[in-house]
């Protein structure tokens, strides 16, 4: 089981990186949270029954751990600063200046959202369906839709105010 788990984590570790980057401001916090999520995944793995995709299950455990993390909260008790997501890099280097600017704006805007909003927008941007988002967060699909509309409005507001 351990071998199987390690292989799955090796392939899907990008999910943990994405979550730690969304929720943590600095390298030390990211490392701590990465380890905490990894430990939680290993602890929960025997209960993974393949009813959902492995990536969905991983997001569920990773987001639960990130939002309820005591270590993370102790280090950053107030809302995340704009530094969050700063270490995400751009996928390729042939983007235009305008796109780069949009990316920077989106990073800053996402970092200003609340913990729940971050998890919903992260799942949405990762192309998770409303059904999956509802399943991961424990809210209804209707509420996910309402919440998504609010988050999009909020993000646009943040991005416009910075332009």
């Amino acid at each position, binding site marked *: 089981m351990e071998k199987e788990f390690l292989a799955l984590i090796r392939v899907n*570790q990008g999910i943990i990186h994405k979550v730690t980057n969304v929720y943590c401001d600095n390298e030390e916090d990211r490392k701590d949270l*990465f380890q905490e999520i990894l430990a939680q995944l290993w602890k929960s793995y025997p209960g993974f029954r393949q009813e959902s995709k492995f990536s969905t299950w991983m997001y569920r455990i990773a987001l639960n751990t990130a939002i309820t993390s005591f270590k993370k909260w102790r280090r950053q008790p107030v809302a995340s600063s704009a530094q969050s997501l700063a270490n995400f890099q751009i996928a390729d280097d042939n983007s235009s200046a305008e796109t780069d600017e949009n990316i920077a704006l989106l990073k800053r805007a996402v970092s200003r959202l609340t913990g729940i909003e971050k998890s919903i927008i992260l799942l949405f941007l990762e192309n998770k369906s409303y059904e999956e988002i509802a399943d991961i967060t424990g809210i209804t699909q209707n509420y996910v839709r309402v919440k998504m509309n609010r988050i999009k409005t909020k993000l646009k507001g943040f991005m416009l105010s910075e332009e």
Partner: protein
Amino acid sequence: MGAEDLREIWGRITADSSGQPVLDENQIRSMLKKRSGSLMEKIDFNIRVGFAVLLGIVMFIVVYDLLSFTGHISDASLQASLPQWLLMLDGISNFLILSIFVTFFLHYFRIRRLCQDNCDLRHALMKVIGILTIYQRLFVVLLFIIMISSITGFAAGYYTSILENQTMEGFLIPVILFGVLVIALLTWLIFLLLRWIFRRVYGNYLDQLRNTLAELDELE
């Protein structure tokens, strides 16, 4: 900017190029071996230890009172000469202590069952909040049990002492009331101290978790 635009921009931000090293299986394994227990695991362990201590105290109080009542560890005639109201108070307090312990124990297991390892965010939050609240209440319950037991013990002890020495009969009620007041005051001070320590360590964290849960629930 629409949803697809946002997704397109997000798509350009890749995790693989996030500056984080890509770990191989050996690195992941060694990271898992190095891990220390999470806060919840530690608190859960403390609660179990707390339950064991509480059970020990409750059993001691109940068994001691039972043995005293039957005259195994004290003079039966002295026990028999205690007024009915004091014996009743002792019985009621023992019943109360046992009921509180059982209720508390059941409440703890109900919260533990609320969410297994793979539950959704709402239930994960409810479980963490529930366990932290139980942890806080454990100390209050312990204090309350010690207070009740001290008050009945003090009243019975003082009454017995007056019976044996046949002195100060006139001061019985005022002294017992004063003693009860002092015990209650001391318990209250310890309670305030424990509450202050708990709030200092976990207060803001607990508030944050409650706010997060409230945000999830706002339209439900």
